[in-house]
């Protein structure tokens, strides 16, 4: 008889799938929203219970699905790291949907609104599956489910721009998942296993004997490249600003905050669970990731500086922030990986908040998203202004906010590296300055009064809805808490990582 909490990962995934099916026959969008929020919040509680159970025991258990025994069956696996990620993702998902609620009902045609929440259910289910799965092929299947659902979220607005952004996103995504699947096929050819634990054993044996070194390196490169494509790693980021900048606010928040992270979680699984840290480091694929990440941090920020459309600016900032994650993963070593996961959590809380606040600010400025029209928007929508300021300052790396903790951890991890130290420290320094160069002017712009002679319409103060207030407060609290309680969270993450 299994302890009750070991069933939670499986039922989390299945419950969301069932909700998706239920929601597809519900006519009203509001009911669909309630079903989605109810499920996500219930699962948030359940996963908290799971975390509270696995953390004190320092336990990482596998959960066999069905009756087929170990080497052939499908399995889920859960430890403190997985549970933490699941809790954070569920919380951010609920808040993104809650905060972008009004935008969804405005942008999506009535009669199709329930389908939007079907996609939200599917995205969350596939994210949880990617976090919990212990089977490489299952991971691939859920990558594709995630891709379709994410594309549907982008095109939900049904304007020409979003349709074209979706098709470009879809094409890049398909190439990415194709590469991942090809790498996986090679891996199956070489090792003959699909369960991550068994592949790991075989790969370690191969590394010890020195056989199949070239195919192993090639397939590592292909899987990393495929997942990098899907999480918009430079230089394959060109689809991201269109997709994230033109979609409805809730979609932008979910895509930037969560969907990209799902693939990074898989990459972390690939590095630590499938290949093993030493084999991955010996292949030098990580060095490529490090350089790409460093370039992304600089190029993404430079592009963001040139951008005058607020949502596209935030989207380019995502490119830079994804670079931080890859910088950490590429550096190698447990400390750098903890920094990368920390960045994932911080970005998951901060970026949806920035998108939600930018959406609200734009709405308070007559639905215009150009920086020029946002002058004084902070006075018209106070909470959104404060949220944007907090998020922007966190991205720059002000102490006591999440972004600072990430930069601290990354720099700390970099100090032990060789040539990587200079790349990482230089990229961190340059990117922090560049971040300040576009977030500070944006913050000043939204808080300054209109100059005499400027032809800006007088707009009324916008009262925020209760849902928006809750969402921004929770996400903001997450950003601040991750900055203040950084040692505790860091210890939790490194414990989780050591159990992988």
């Amino acid at each position, binding site marked *: 008889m299994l302890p009750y909490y070991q069933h939670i990962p499986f039922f989390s995934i299945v419950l969301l799938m069932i909700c998706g099916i239920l929601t597809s026959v519900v006519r009203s969008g509001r009911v669909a929203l309630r079903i989605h929020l109810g499920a996500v919040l219930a699962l948030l509680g359940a996963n908290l219970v799971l975390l509270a159970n696995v953390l004190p025991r320092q336990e990482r258990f596998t959960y066999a699905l069905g009756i087929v025994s170990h080497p*052939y069956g499908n399995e889920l696996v859960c430890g403190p790291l997985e549970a933490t990620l699941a809790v954070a993702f569920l919380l951010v998902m609920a808040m993104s949907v809650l905060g972008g609620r009004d935008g969804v009902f405005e942008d999506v045609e009535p009669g199709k609104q329930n389908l939007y929440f079907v996609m939200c259910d599917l995205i969350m289910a596939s994210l949880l599956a990617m976090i919990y799965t212990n089977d490489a*092929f299952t991971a*691939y*299947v859920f990558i*594709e489910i995630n*891709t*379709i659902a994410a*594309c*549907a979220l982008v*095109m939900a607005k*049904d304007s*020409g*721009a979003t*349709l*074209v952004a*979706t*098709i*470009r996103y*879809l*094409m890049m995504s*398909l*190439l990415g998942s*194709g*590469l991942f*699947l*090809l790498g996986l*096929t090679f891996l*199956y*050819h070489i090792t003959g296993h*699909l369960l991550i634990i068994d592949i790991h054993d075989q790969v370690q044996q191969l590394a010890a004997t020195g056989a199949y070194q070239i195919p192993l390196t090639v397939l590592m490169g292909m899987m990393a490249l495929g997942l990098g494509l899907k999480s918009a790693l430079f230089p394959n980021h060109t689809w991201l600003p269109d997709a994230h900048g033109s979609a409805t606010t809730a979609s932008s928040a979910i895509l930037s905050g969560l969907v990209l992270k799902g693939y990074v979680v898989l990459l972390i699984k690939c590095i630590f669970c499938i290949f093993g840290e030493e084999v991955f480091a010996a292949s030098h694929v990580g060095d490529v990731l490090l350089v790409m990440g460093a370039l992304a941090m600089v190029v993404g920020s430079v592009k963001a500086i040139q951008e005058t459309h607020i949502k596209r600016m935030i989207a380019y900032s995502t490119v830079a922030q994804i670079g931080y994650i890859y910088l950490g993963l590429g550096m190698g070593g447990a400390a750098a990986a903890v920094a990368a996961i920390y960045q994932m959590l911080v970005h998951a809380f901060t970026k949806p908040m920035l998108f939600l606040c930018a959406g609200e600010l734009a709405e308070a400025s007559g639905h215009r998203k150009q920086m020029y029209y946002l002058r004084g928007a902070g006075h018209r929508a106070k909470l959104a202004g404060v949220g944007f300021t907090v998020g922007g300052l966190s991205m720059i790396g002000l102490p006591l906010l999440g972004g600072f903790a990430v930069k601290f951890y990354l720099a700390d991890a970099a100090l032990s590296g060789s040539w990587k130290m200079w790349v990482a420290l230089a990229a961190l320094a340059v990117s922090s300055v560049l971040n300040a160069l576009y977030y500070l002017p944006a913050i000043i712009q939204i808080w300054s009064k209109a100059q005499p002679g400027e032809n800006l319409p007088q707009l009324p103060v916008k009262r925020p809805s209760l849902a928006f207030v809750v969402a921004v407060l929770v996400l903001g609290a997450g950003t601040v808490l991750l900055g203040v309680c950084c040692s505790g969270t860091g210890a939790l993450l490194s414990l989780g990582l050591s159990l992988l």
Partner: protein
Amino acid sequence: MSELFSTLWTQRFMITAVLLFCIGAFSLVFNPNLIKKLIGFDLMDGAIYLMLTSAGYIRGRVAPIVTDFSAAPSVETYINPIPTGLVLTGIVVSVSVTAFALALVVRIYQKYHTVYLDVIMATMKKGVD
């Protein structure tokens, strides 16, 4: 020389699959026609299925379908069925992705009256200016 040919011959499925994958990926990335991009995607996935099926095939053995119940089934008679199962799953995935993408292309065609991505991008640029 004969060694090279025999390696090429034993790896023929792998080589065909990699060539097909490259053709598909090239078409997916560089062809401006959206329909041809999708055909490229299906070629790419087809190549992977070929590779998976060939991984499970063992020369001289048959599909694991037991017809003769008088003798106990022997593992030595059958091919490895797991890759075939993976191919089935993969086909389901690629069918649904293709269906979704085709629906999207239809929608784009209704809006822009063309399936050429470069033309669409040019039209969008003009709209902005």
